[in-house]
């Protein structure tokens, strides 16, 4: 019980984010370039929390933010990504198709 709470502790402000990232890890392979999508328009208001906590579960993949720390969109990172991991949002991105959908997010993979 206490151990389970400790495991969830770093992700507690975004429920389901740890499970999502573990699922994304299972569905991707080393070398994949994963962009993190989230319904947070500002870096310091949720996005950084999700992005920085996605790094550890997704080691071996290149994990890219779609927002910089000045809250500017990073279209260049989206262009490099071949996978999008979306937390509690359903982005419509041309060239990507949904390959998995779960309770707290979904995974999209580049099709062209």
């Amino acid at each position, binding site marked *: 019980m*206490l*151990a*389970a709470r*400790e*495991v969830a*502790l*770093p992700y507690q402000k975004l429920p389901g984010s740890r499970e999502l990232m573990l699922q994304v890890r299972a569905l991707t392979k*080393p070398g994949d370039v994963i962009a993190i999508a989230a319904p947070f328009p500002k870096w310091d208001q949720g996005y950084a929390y999700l*992005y*920085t*906590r996605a*790094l*550890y579960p997704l*080691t*071996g993949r*290149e994990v*890219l*933010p779609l927002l910089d720390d000045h809250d500017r969109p990073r279209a260049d990172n989206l262009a490099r990504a071949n996978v999008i991991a979306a937390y509690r949002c359903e982005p419509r991105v041309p060239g990507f198709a949904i390959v998995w959908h779960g309770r707290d997010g979904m995974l999209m993979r580049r099709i062209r």
Partner: protein
Amino acid sequence: MIAEACFIALALAVGLPLTLRLSAPPREPVPRVGEGVLLGIAICTATLAILPWSRWIVIATILLIAAIAWKRVFTPRPRYDALLILALLLGYALYAMLAPPPEYDYLTNWGFKAKAFFEIRGIDWQFLGRSIDRNVHPDYPLLLPLTYDFIAILRNGWNDAHLGIVHVAFAAALLLVIHETAWDDTRSRIVALFIAIALIPFAATPWIGLAEGPFIAYATAALLLIRRGDLTLGAILLGLAASTKNEGLTLIAAAAIGLFCTGRKRDVVRLWPAVLIPLPWLIARSLHQLPTDIAAGGVVARVVEHALHPAPLFAALSSVSLGKPLYWIALAIGIAIASRTLVTRERFILVALFVQFACYLGAYLATPFDVAWHVTWSWERLVAHLTPALTYVVLVQLVARMSTAQTHPTRS
């Protein structure tokens, strides 16, 4: 847990005989277990910088080094009081191994690097070079991440559930060094035991997964060994402190200044292993052009700017709680009582800690980040680097003063 237990056994097997060869007399194995673990962990991790990341290759190499070093015949002398110290760490062990390290800096720095390296079974320079998140700190030395990797190699898979045992091993090793040094200083088993137990909260840091515990272990053990004249081993541990955290680099300078100020000028040169050990990492990170945030462009301008407007720094320093108010009050009283003997007998430690403290303040002046943010997230940990050695010398000198008072009641 088998991989973690094997790791500690291998570290002790290789570290203890080498410690006995490198340390000053008396060269008895039992009192040197602490230094043996500290040195052994570093040797295990060093093999990963040279050898292929294969379980049997690293095990064979460690055992070979241990076998070569185990040439002498030892006569172990039992130290049951040290077992009490280890028993008192049981609660800390339960805390440390409750779950994978949950600390943010573990997930984005120390553990993240270790896991990323293990993915490719080697130090991933490309990963370090391209790191986007600033908390990855690619310039930080790799002793701790490689320690985690060594355990993963023994297991042949990544499992962070029990990595906290590394921190228990470092805490135990430091406490054994403190116990032995206190015995050497006071020649009293009870006092040595008391001092070691008193320092348990300082060695057993709450930051599981981070490099603070290992750094405190290497740095404090190094200062205590250099203080008592065990220069070679002390200098090696000092170099290992610099291989654990960048703060160790300034500690080398601080120790050299401390020796210089105590008139031990010849001993300054004998610190050469401390400079040699972190050198390969410094060269490698320079060749790979890994950025160092504190040294990022415009250092002088930032220092001048912060020095001219120190109010935000002072406000930040005063706003961060260092906790343990009773400890600070007791320490201040202890320093006041033993001030005379501290200044005369403990000048090396006091000067070294003061210089290190000044370097920490200097880092805040040079920070490219918001000062309040930087202080908030580091001040308590930085102070924790210095308190074990300071508390140790205060306790030892208080004991010395009490002994003098009992021997010569009229003088007190």
